[in-house]
């Protein structure tokens, strides 16, 4: 340093003593400003803990994540009676991994906006009532309901909850149980059912050497993302498969693709036909596996025509065909952006055609094993259920409707006027953890316990190899003594209704009994089957599935109309952060930047630079997106990951209710959807809305994570070619 013999410590000491004037301080012996005074904090000991409970040391307990319908197994770290952290259960379908929703499901459990007592509508608003009164109200309004005049409207339901729900419906003389999920694979399932003879086949991403995905965001929101991410890791190692993604707006999967191809919304099927055309005409792939009708349709879609319709260049088509031809077996998937159109069924059918043409059926897409206990199978959701429900409600079919695990007043297009139709139902009951948009309209609100406070069984809808019953156990005491588990409520309703055979003190007792009655082939040789199941978090119960058929349906494509006054396509995209909006009340999820745009706590619209130039807008400028049903104003994010003709607004934000974190944040693109329906499956075509966009002149900085869009020349990440990778690290 300098010539003076002052080192940093002495310098500071001098400053400290002189500057602060604390000459009498005795260094570390100075009492701190933090409360460590005696008697200021309380300590409560355990009453009678189990032997393994040691304060200060965490114990791990198995349970099941319920944040999305995938049903991943988790291990929860429990310390001093509180669950602190979740990790993936390595023995379940998700393996070690757990996605961000799963991690954040803790905040669902600990959420400050949870409902902590029953509520009933009195004089127009919801007021707290006691459980006695709630049961009384339920008995008065639902107990004497005529046969067939009640219905359940729920999210995905499985396991013994499904069994009880069915029994309850039977007691009420109603068959009406609508299962609705805004993010679903229903169109794909319909095509699978028609062609393969099985709605949910097994996808083996890890066995594929090339994957062509038409809008199936299997790393984000498609079917079982964590499970597929695990397979994806395998797919990318060794010989490293090639991933191609065709969609109008870049999804997380698209961001990881070797080739991301922007197709005009709704033209995915045409692209698939074009690729088939190239494969047959240029690569001499034998079309004999396809029916003549299909070959005729394929023949119409030469490169020029496909380019004209979809905007995908001939070069891209040829490259995709080359990759598929050179890397067998491949796997062709279709998802959200291909399905949710008026021609969604044809899109999915065309994608399936490629699987047949390329001989993938039986290799990378295969017969799926089933759960051995049929009645516990998951009932998966669709939006057709929503449409049917709205119709029935409008016709005045129900006196009582129960809502659970879904928020249709947020996710249904305003055009449907679901709120108006629901006014025709005299008594609406919502079983919910939160005062979401739907629950706010209910006449009776029954507070649910969180998935980490209750006993339960559930069944993951997608588990094609080893099917299992997932066990949930409470990871801690309920935060509120007034919440009840869904199972307990179902059991209570059955008892109130005087149904025989449900005389159990609790759902826990019912579950133990029901599990005990499982066939010996499932129970196996465990000394204590119940304890063993709860400890592991699952019970393997696989029934061999059959093989697949290949009955290709009609491939002819419906032309996408020009749009007239509404030249743009609205893409209400889904992502893991918000899912269908259910994660909007979790601060961790709101704070998490979107993977693609890096926006947090707000909504944004994605447009292409060319579109932006035409409008004369820059990042953060507001645009007005107008459909025939209304308009929303939203800030833009401009990048080259969205089709020129599309404007993408991620769904999940724009809640009017749903607690302090969700309320008033962003806009809901679903609110301006036209009521377009995919006719074959009856699904709501959520991507089928045409819009116009205009500049509003307003500007507000887009709240997004700082930093540059590119690496501006720094070597932060480089790109190595797959050829080099295979040479140096290949199998």
């Amino acid at each position, binding site marked *: 340093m300098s010539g003076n013999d002052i080192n940093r410590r002495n310098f500071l000491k001098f400053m400290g003593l002189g500057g602060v004037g604390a000459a009498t301080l005795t260094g570390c012996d100075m009492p701190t400003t933090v409360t460590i005074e005696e008697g200021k904090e309380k300590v409560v000991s355990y009453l009678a803990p189990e032997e393994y409970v040691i304060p200060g040391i965490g114990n791990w307990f198995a349970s099941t994540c319920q944040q999305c319908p995938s049903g991943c197994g988790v291990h929860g770290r429990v310390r001093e009676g509180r669950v602190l952290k979740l990790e993936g259960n390595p023995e379940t379908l998700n393996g070690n991994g757990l996605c961000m929703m799963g*991690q954040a499901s803790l905040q669902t459990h600990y959420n400050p906006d949870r409902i902590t007592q029953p509520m009933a509508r009195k004089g127009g608003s919801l007021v707290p009532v006691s459980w006695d009164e709630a049961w009384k109200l339920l008995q008065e309004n639902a107990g004497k309901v005529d046969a067939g005049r009640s219905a359940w409207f729920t999210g995905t339901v499985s396991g013994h909850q499904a069994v009880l729900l069915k029994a309850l419906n039977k007691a009420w003389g109603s068959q009406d149980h609508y299962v609705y999920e805004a993010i679903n694979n229903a169109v794909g399932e319909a095509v699978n059912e028609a062609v393969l003879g099985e709605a949910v086949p097994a996808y083996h991403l890890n066995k594929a050497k090339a994957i062509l995905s038409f809008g199936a965001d299997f790393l984000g929101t498609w079917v079982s993302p964590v499970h597929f991410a695990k397979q994806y890791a395998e797919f990318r190692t060794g010989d490293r498969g090639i991933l191609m993604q065709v969609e109008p707006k870049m999804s997380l999967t698209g961001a990881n693709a070797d080739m991301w191809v922007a197709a005009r919304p709704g033209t995915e099927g045409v692209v698939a036909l074009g690729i088939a055309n190239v494969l047959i005409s240029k690569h001499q792939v034998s079309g004999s596996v396809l029916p003549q009708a299909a070959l005729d349709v394929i023949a119409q879609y030469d490169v020029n025509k496909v380019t004209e319709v979809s905007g995908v260049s001939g070069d891209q088509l040829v490259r995709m065909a080359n990759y598929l031809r050179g890397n067998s077996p491949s796997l062709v998937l279709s998802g959200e952006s291909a399905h949710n159109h008026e021609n969604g069924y044809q899109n999915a059918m065309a994608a399936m055609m490629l699987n047949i043409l390329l001989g993938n059926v039986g290799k990378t897409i295969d017969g799926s094993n089933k759960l051995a206990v049929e009645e516990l199978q998951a009932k998966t959701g669709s939006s057709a259920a929503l449409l049917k429900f709205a119709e029935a409600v409008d016709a005045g079919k129900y006196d009582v409707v129960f809502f659970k695990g879904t928020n249709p007043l947020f996710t249904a297009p305003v055009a449907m006027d679901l709120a108006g139709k629901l006014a025709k139902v005299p008594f609406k009951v919502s079983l919910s953890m939160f005062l979401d948009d739907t629950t706010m309209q209910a006449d009776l609100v029954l507070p649910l316990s969180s998935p980490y406070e209750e006993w339960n069984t559930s069944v993951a809808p997608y588990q094609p190899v080893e099917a299992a019953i997932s066990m949930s156990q409470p990871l801690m005491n309920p935060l509120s003594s007034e919440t009840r588990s869904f199972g307990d409520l179902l059991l209570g309703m059955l008892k109130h209704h005087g149904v025989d055979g449900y005389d159990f003190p609790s759902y826990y007792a019912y579950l133990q009994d029901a599990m005990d009655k499982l066939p010996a082939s499932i129970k196996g040789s465990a000394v204590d089957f119940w304890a063993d199941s709860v400890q592991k978090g699952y019970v393997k119960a696989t029934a061999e599935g059959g093989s697949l058929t290949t009955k290709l349906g009609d491939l002819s494509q419906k032309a996408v109309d020009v749009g007239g006054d509404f030249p743009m396509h609205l893409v209400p995209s889904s992502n893991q952060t918000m899912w269908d909006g259910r994660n909007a009340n979790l601060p961790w999820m709101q704070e998490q930047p979107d993977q693609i745009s890096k926006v947090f706590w707000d909504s944004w619209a994605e447009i292409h630079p060319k579109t932006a130039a035409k409008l004369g807008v820059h990042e953060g400028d507001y645009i007005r997106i107008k459909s025939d049903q209304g308009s929303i104003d939203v800030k833009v994010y401009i*990048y*080259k990951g969205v089709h020129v003709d599309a404007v993408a607004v991620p769904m999940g934000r724009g809640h009017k209710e749903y607690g302090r974190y969700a309320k008033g944040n962003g806009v809901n693109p679903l609110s301006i959807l036209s009521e377009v329906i995919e006719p074959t499956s009856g699904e709501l075509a959520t991507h089928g809305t045409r819009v116009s966009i205009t500049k509003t002149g307003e500007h507000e900085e887009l*709240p997004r994570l700082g930093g540059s869009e590119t690496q501006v020349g720094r070597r932060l990440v480089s790109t190595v070619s797959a050829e080099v990778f295979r040479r140096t690290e290949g199998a």
Partner: protein
Amino acid sequence: MSLKNVLENWSDYRKTHEQGGHHEYEHMWTLAIDLNKCTGCNACSVACYAENNLATVGKEKLHKGQGMHWLRMERYWDEPQMGGDDAEYHERGASFLPMMCQHCNAATCEPVCPVAATYHTPDGLNAQVYNRCIGSRYCSNNCPYRLRYFNFYSYYDTSWPEPLNQQLNPDISVRDKGVMEKCTFCVQRIRTGKDQAASEGRELRDGDVVTACAQSCPTQAIVFGDMLDEESEAAKLWAKQQVELGPYEQKKDKEGSELRGYRVLEALNTDPCVMYLDRVREA
């Protein structure tokens, strides 16, 4: 003192300097992150929030750059002038880069701390001692990776309203206003793992300690381990990629020149303990 001398001796100097101070490390904790497997899904980042009591600061403060994301996912688009795609669309998708404190062995944040609140531990970690920190923010200014986060406000009441605060991990502190914080390589897990091994009377084994990010990763793209344990998966990965701790430029052999392993901004001679493996694309 010539520039050459500074460059060549800086790393040695930093490692033997009293502030950085350990001639013999007990462990050398490192990460190896494969960007070929990383999908940018952000599970690691949320896992970090859950494990490390990270405050959520809200829209305005986050937008001002006051967020507490110890592990943040960088996303870059290919740039035309660098030989990337100049096409109409981002045909090769995005580049994701999970960035957490790089635990540099010649950390630039350490020597500038006026109160030695940040220093190197005997297990190769870049420590941040909260109760020592006076909030000068020199360290943050000096971090070339921008991976240190300052508590401009007290977030306890706003970030964890009852009962969210019950989720807080008691193994680590909740930081208050005026304190710098950053990724610790889950030091509480390292300490617990070591204590556990010690109480079982054995050496720490590979896999005893896993950071929250590595554990949550659905594709297992993040590998955590001790470089001094040659049998650890992380050490093997580093060796296989011919990346070493110490030099500011990796001397890979002829075959190795095609390997993907590198450290971010290595040429700054910070000697980071995080090795990345480049992303891969077909063309």
